């Protein structure tokens, strides 16, 4: 399995074949606090890199989740509808948001690997 890649806005993407699973980082969920609602995109919608794809609401506030790469949403994590707290419990595994089919796999190269992301959040 490929490694996770991260954006500066704390999304992660993990490719499996031609699609990638997207979520927010463990660091991001910790900053957000208790998550009470996740608004997911509709399957079949196409986004450009950096577009607002989903919204995550904590007790405190709403935050946008941006597309780490451009492409078509091919699946969403329906478990989050009933159990948004999954994002707190397992941000980088069970708490994934959606799967996207990148239109240009080259965009993945612009993202950070785990080590670079660790440096980014340590700043």
């Amino acid at each position, binding site marked *: 399995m490929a490694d996770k890649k991260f954006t500066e806005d704390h999304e992660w993407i993990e490719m499996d074949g031609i699609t990638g699973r997207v979520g927010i980082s463990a660091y991001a969920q910790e900053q957000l606090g*208790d998550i009470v609602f996740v608004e997911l995109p509709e399957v079949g919608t196409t986004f450009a890199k950096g577009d607002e794809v989903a919204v995550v609401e904590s007790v405190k506030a709403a935050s946008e989740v941006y597309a780490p790469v451009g492409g078509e949403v091919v699946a969403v994590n329906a478990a989050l509808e009933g159990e948004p707290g999954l994002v707190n419990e397992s941000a980088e595994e069970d708490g994934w948001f959606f799967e996207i089919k990148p239109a240009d796999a080259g965009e993945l190269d612009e993202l950070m690997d785990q080590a670079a992301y660790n440096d980014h959040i340590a700043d």
Partner: protein
Amino acid sequence: MASPTDTENLFKTPLFALHEALGAKIVPFAGYAMPVQYKLGVMKEHQWTRENAGLFDVSHMGQAVLEANEGEDAATLLEALTPSALQELKPGRQRYSMLLNDQGGILDDLMVARPLNPLPDTTSDNQLYLVVNAACKAQDFALIEASIAGKGTLTQLADRALLALQGPAAEAALASLVPEVAAMVFMQSRVFDWHGVTLFISRSGYTGEDGFEISVPADKAEDFAKALLADERVAAIGLGARDSLRLEAGLPLYGHDLDPDTNPVEANLTFAIGKRRKIDKDFPGAEKIMSDLFDGPARRRVGLLPEGRAPAREGTKVLSAAGDEIGIICSGGFGPSFGGPVAMAYLKTEFAEEGTDVLLEIRGKQHKAQVAPMPFTPHTYKRASA
């Protein structure tokens, strides 16, 4: 994302070091460096308060004593700025009130207590103890001072901290330090001694729970807070949970649910307008307020229950079932005890009836909601038995 708050240019309460020691996340609020949450997080802090006892630092709020000069009356002086019947306030009692501008708009909401006996370091036995909002305190105190000039004095109690202890275990936890509080009832105000420290205690709060607000000298605040926190039923609670607790309790927040363009009738706070004051019509903005009382206001603060799980935040547009814009959400979010989203809104009065179906526009999509009674979670105040 969030970087550690630079607290250099912010005021700090006497409990700031304790907040840091307890691992609080500090945010700026009304010019103060305040704990928004501790290690438990907003959700668990909220639930802890509803089930046990939560300790809040509210020292940023403004405390003051209004003393009347010889031949004057403190309640009469303050009545010039409020619609409350303060002359009728009995010694040892507290009342919710508000300061109004000449149009009847709310400049701030506040608590007014008439001490049973003169407070320490005061000279007049005709006095009131006031607690106002942090963000408004400079303006409030200037307004009151100008209004009472030559007839009384206002002394800010900047050397006192203010704590709130709220929740079903609040009475037992506080009574283990100050046994006399067990006999107090809702909106009573007393002065008690704790190891030589003078505490001003009222049985009131801002969570909908039974509880107390305790004014303590700044240099003893940390000792007192630690004594409360030593009780396993007591946890430190941040401003995040304070907001979700008051929202579920239907209690308005100044600057969000109340402002100078909103009068007490629109705000659904007519209970705070004294009977005598309505007859005499002698308060700021009386003409407008009495006409809104009589004819009904053009808009009114109501509760809203959004369907589904999406929280509807402050600023969310409210539409009628037919799609016309009828108002705006002033406070909204997730209610941890309610178990879903809750909100308050100002709606045109013809849509303010409980049960009315409305639509909320959240991120371009329409969500259904209903006008609902408040509070969203029942108040558990310890009222005097009838």
